């Protein structure tokens, strides 16, 4: 990322301007702001929120210091809009799986978008829908990525605080397993033969699913340096058929290279041609 100290140092004197933009998404990541409670009002005092449609302010074309982007690019119009936002924003931060990696709706990239369109719509010609759903970084440069489906308020506040202080936010890319060990959560893969994505998934959720006795399904996205092949082999060893292994690797982050490589391999083994 660019030199944050230099860039936002200049901002320290005046109220930084913040925008929250929505693309194709479920709106859940914006709730990381809207669920802040008192802290939302506090945030409104330290920064100027100039565009945040769901919260009220509308000024899509404002120049801002930080733009938070929720959602993925899935129409031609989206592709134009994100370029425009990039030009008007000093820092652009993607929040959540959709913006960062395409999100769950990118599963349609594995199918045939055109066929789907026609199977759902009586009049497909009304519909503007690109064949492929893509993350923001495929269209413009992104300064920082917040992973998670959904991101939580803690991540948002930490990112805003870092940027206001003029330091790059910390990228939490270690694996869920480490969090489980720290929490002393019993391993669900070892004790319950659960197909846990923890060894390949970023922390940030607090290792929520294992603490609920269930397998992590990877909602915080791929961690750094994962060994997908080895994990998939474990799944197969636990009795999962190839299609199941592939689906496990391709749910919310189906566009992640690290995950889709393994998924592709297992789809081939299962004889499916979805990829």
């Amino acid at each position, binding site marked *: 990322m660019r030199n944050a100290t230099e860039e936002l140092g200049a901002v320290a004197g005046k109220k930084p301007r913040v925008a929250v933009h*929505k693309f*194709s998404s*479920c*709106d*859940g*990541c*914006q*709730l990381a702001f*809207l*669920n802040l409670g*008192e802290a*939302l*009002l506090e945030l*409104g005092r330290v920064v100027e*929120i100039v565009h945040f*449609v*769901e*919260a*009220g*302010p509308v000024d*899509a074309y404002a120049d801002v210091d930080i733009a938070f982007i929720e959602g993925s690019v*899935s*129409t*031609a*119009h989206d592709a*134009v809009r994100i370029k425009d936002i990039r030009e008007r924003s000093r820092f652009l931060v993607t929040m959540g799986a959709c913006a960062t990696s395409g*999100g*769950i*709706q990118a*599963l*349609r990239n*594995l*199918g045939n978008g055109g066929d*789907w*369109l026609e*199977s*759902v*719509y*009586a*009049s*497909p*010609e*009304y*519909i*503007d*829908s690109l064949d492929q759903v893509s993350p923001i970084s495929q269209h413009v440069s992104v300064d920082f990525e917040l992973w998670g*489906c*959904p991101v939580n308020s803690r991540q948002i506040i930490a990112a805003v605080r870092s940027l206001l202080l003029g330091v790059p936010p910390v990228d939490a890319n270690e694996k869920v397993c480490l969090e489980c060990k720290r929490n002393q959560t019993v391993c669900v893969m070892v004790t319950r033969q659960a197909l846990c994505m923890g060894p390949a998934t970023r922390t940030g959720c607090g290792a929520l*699913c294992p*603490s*609920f*006795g*269930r397998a992590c*399904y990877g*909602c915080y996205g791929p961690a750094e340096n994962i060994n997908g092949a080895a994990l998939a082999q474990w799944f197969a060893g636990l009795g999962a058929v190839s299609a*199941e292994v592939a*689906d496990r690797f391709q*749910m*919310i982050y189906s566009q992640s290279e690290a995950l889709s490589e393994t998924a592709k391999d297992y789809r081939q083994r299962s004889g499916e041609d*979805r990829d």
Partner: protein
Amino acid sequence: MTDNKEIRISIPALARVEGEGALDVVISDGQITDLKLRIYEPPRYFEKFLEGRMYHEVPDIVARICGICPVAYQMTAVQALESICDVAVTPWIRDMRQVLYCGEWIQSHSLHMHLLALPDFLGFNSIMEMAADYPQEVQRGMRLQAAGNDLMSLLGGRSVHPVGIIPGGFSRAPEAVAVSRMVDTLAVATDDAQQLLRWLVTLDLPVVEQQFVSVAMRSAPAYPLYQGRIISSQGLDIDKQEFAEHFSEFQVPHSTALHCLLDGQAYLVGPLARLNLNHDCLPEHLQVLLDELGIQFPVRNMFCSVIARAVEVCYALHEAQRLLEQYRLPDQAAVAVIPRSGVGFGCTEAPRGVLWHRYELDDTGRIVSARIVPPTSQNQARIEDDLRQSLTAHGLERDEDSLRLMGEKVIRNYDPCISCATHFLKLSVRNESVLVPEKSPIEDDIAFDKTTSSVAVIGVGSAHGADQLGYDVIRWLEKNDSVQRADVAVYYLDHFDMSFIKHIAAVEQIIFVDAMQAGRAKGSLIMVKGKDKDVSTRQANISSHEMGLQEYIVWLQTMLDEGVDISVIGLDTGGDAAWCYQEKDIQAVAMAILKMLSS
């Protein structure tokens, strides 16, 4: 002001609603001649990519349809899946699902009332502004919202996309100590909620009495939430299996959300419809409170929806507290599910109203097909009806800002959840900026007056490669002063924009000029008449840039008077976006346009 003034109001981005939507209204001769609630949230195809997935993945996938009401989707899905697999859940599971669902109602309603609706009634743009004048009320609202979130986290682990719900029950039972702490929080929240209700009835809400059909679930003597039959204020009383026989969804050009009608007519779902049909099922203390406050259901004023939400928050807090006070750790938090083939239905009351799912499973537990009908697509037709009535009652002669604000208030009242409504849908129109040079030399030359122009020639494009063709043709017409007719106006348009329509509202003929991609040889002259529907029914994109010229034309056809002649003319780029056409190519298009204008 003249009698025949025509007003076009458009709200290109609806603030304080969940998702992306817009409103277009056309008023002429003191009547609303056209009104469209446009939803342009892109399609997300959930039903399609559920196909082939295992049944146990469904709750985590459908949660992602909506970040504000994920539990509603999870609950409805597990209900349907369990019915296929013939699973009977324990009373503990049933009760805790009720509690979790209450948490979502509290969270969603509190968020809507305080962050989205109340700023309207009190004259603010956002809760941040409102907090300066109403600090206590805002803090109370945030405490209620937090109580709902905490309740969801207790059973689900987190409030957005919770992880606790699985087919068969819960993945974990909360510890008794956490539950008893929650009961304390609920007691405080109950007090807050009743104060909120008492305060809301003192507000000066608009009064617009309307006739409408209410649809809700019914599970008397209990207030409906997780189960029940589907009833209406006109005597409908059906089981969830029969939903599709009475309710039908269809696509309209201006919305990516399907419209849903009950036996062909618009209807209301959500808090007000629920209370209108189930007020007798509220706990006694709440009925007493409503009597004391002088609130009598059924209510015909849609603006009372905000009061209905507060009543439901009181109910949900009471219900959660009642069930958690008798909490015991269960022997098992979930029962076993053995997948089998079949078709199953789920129907519950989401915060915004009836939510209906249908799934088909194969014998290995894979989804064969899925269908989801969310509350907002059901309310769409009703919202448009309401807007027509409310704006007319408000006074169509009022200034545009006043009408616009009223329109927004009416829509927000329904708490439309557009992400839900477009879980797979998307539409054609966009709210892009439009390039209409303020002092276009051509406009000056021909003394453009939109009341006398009957033809609009619109060059579509950008300053890149072959896409400049539209502009160049207009420039050529301008330079050569070749348009002899005084009633022809010309435009440069860089993006398709609904607001552009005001410039061409009165014309009889529209000619779009653009670089094309119709699969012909480079430089072929292509003319497509919009009138003979060739444009609107073509599957392939005729436009070289991706901005959806066809969709724009389809939209124009729905917005403009019938009989407006729309055509498209241009040169095929042969797929070469960087094609450098010659002056003679520009001239060829220009001459073709002049020929069209002289005929």
